[in-house]
């Protein structure tokens, strides 16, 4: 199993959640691989975790489009429980630097060559005084499939 880091960059300067440009990822036919997405939230901001504390809150969610890699399983890091002035109870959030991990399988029937896996990352960020509209970021990672 290969542990792979993949980074992306987002064009909108208003995004408070950022990634770095993608790195080249290599995976063997028939193998499993993990794709790591390191994320960074601008200081002072937090976003809801994948399991927010309140039904009205919008969760962080990474979804992958159907593609050449199979059975994507997204693993979210443990959230932080943080108290903010606008909430009577601590909220389940992410802040600073954190990583999302996705496990994939490369089909035994896959053909060698480069493929691109694409996904969408939806998040909703706030400070302790204001919230930004939910944003969805396109994630695109090139994968070199080898024998």
């Amino acid at each position, binding site marked *: 199993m290969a542990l792979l880091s993949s980074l992306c960059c987002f064009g909108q300067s208003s995004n408070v959640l950022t990634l770095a440009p993608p790195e080249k990822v290599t995976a063997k036919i028939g193998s499993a691989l993990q794709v790591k997405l390191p994320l960074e939230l601008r200081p002072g901001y937090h976003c809801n975790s994948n399991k927010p504390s309140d039904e009205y*809150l919008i969760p962080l969610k990474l979804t992958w489009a159907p593609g050449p890699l199979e059975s994507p399983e997204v693993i979210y890091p443990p959230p932080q429980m943080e108290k903010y002035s*606008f*909430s009577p109870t601590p909220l389940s959030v992410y802040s600073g630097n954190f990583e999302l991990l996705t496990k994939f399988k490369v089909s035994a029937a896959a053909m060698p060559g480069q493929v691109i896996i694409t996904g969408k990352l939806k998040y909703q960020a706030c400070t302790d*005084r*204001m*919230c930004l509209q939910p944003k969805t970021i396109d994630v695109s990672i090139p994968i070199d499939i080898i024998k």
Partner: protein
Amino acid sequence: MPSLYNQIRVIVRYIAAATVLCAALSITGCSSLERAFGTSTVKAAVKAEHDRKPAPDFTLKDVHGKPVKLSDYRGKVVLLNFWATWCGPCKIEIPWFMDFEQTYKDKNFAVLGISLDEDGWESVKPYIEEKKINYRVMVGTEQVATLYGEVDSLPTTFMIDREGRVAAVHIGLVNKSEYNHDILELLEAPQPNRGGIVVEPVLLRTK
């Protein structure tokens, strides 16, 4: 003539707003909203009359399906609040706005809420019912948000004077007392001058 105390108070408020503005700009840059309405503050004092721009008109439906047209509120001071059910800081302000609606509704004042929830009434209607919100709430459209400078940050609240002009913009959670000050300042301003007659406002502050 305004008293010396009031003049000093206005100056202090402008300095405070400018300080917050510098800090905010260093982090966020200048938004469309700021460009549209000439304000770039996290909180801003009521602007001088000649600096006020017309509040863009819109018609949206409230929870009962009745149309709400902003220009129908001409002659009233309007607190126009953009919010969402997923916005924690917005939820702090809503009880304040309910208080304002209750306190000033008979004094030519109204609160209007525009929700920017993506799923519209599905989230907003239960929330209105749960919190027993006593002012009119509409579900916003991208078009209306664009008219008001895209409104990327919530809460964003526009204080609209009796002439239908944007007198102040508050981005982010502000103190209740600051809103109250704005409301009183706008309600106490002389009524729009029509045909050369200046109508003095009703005395609102309690002694």
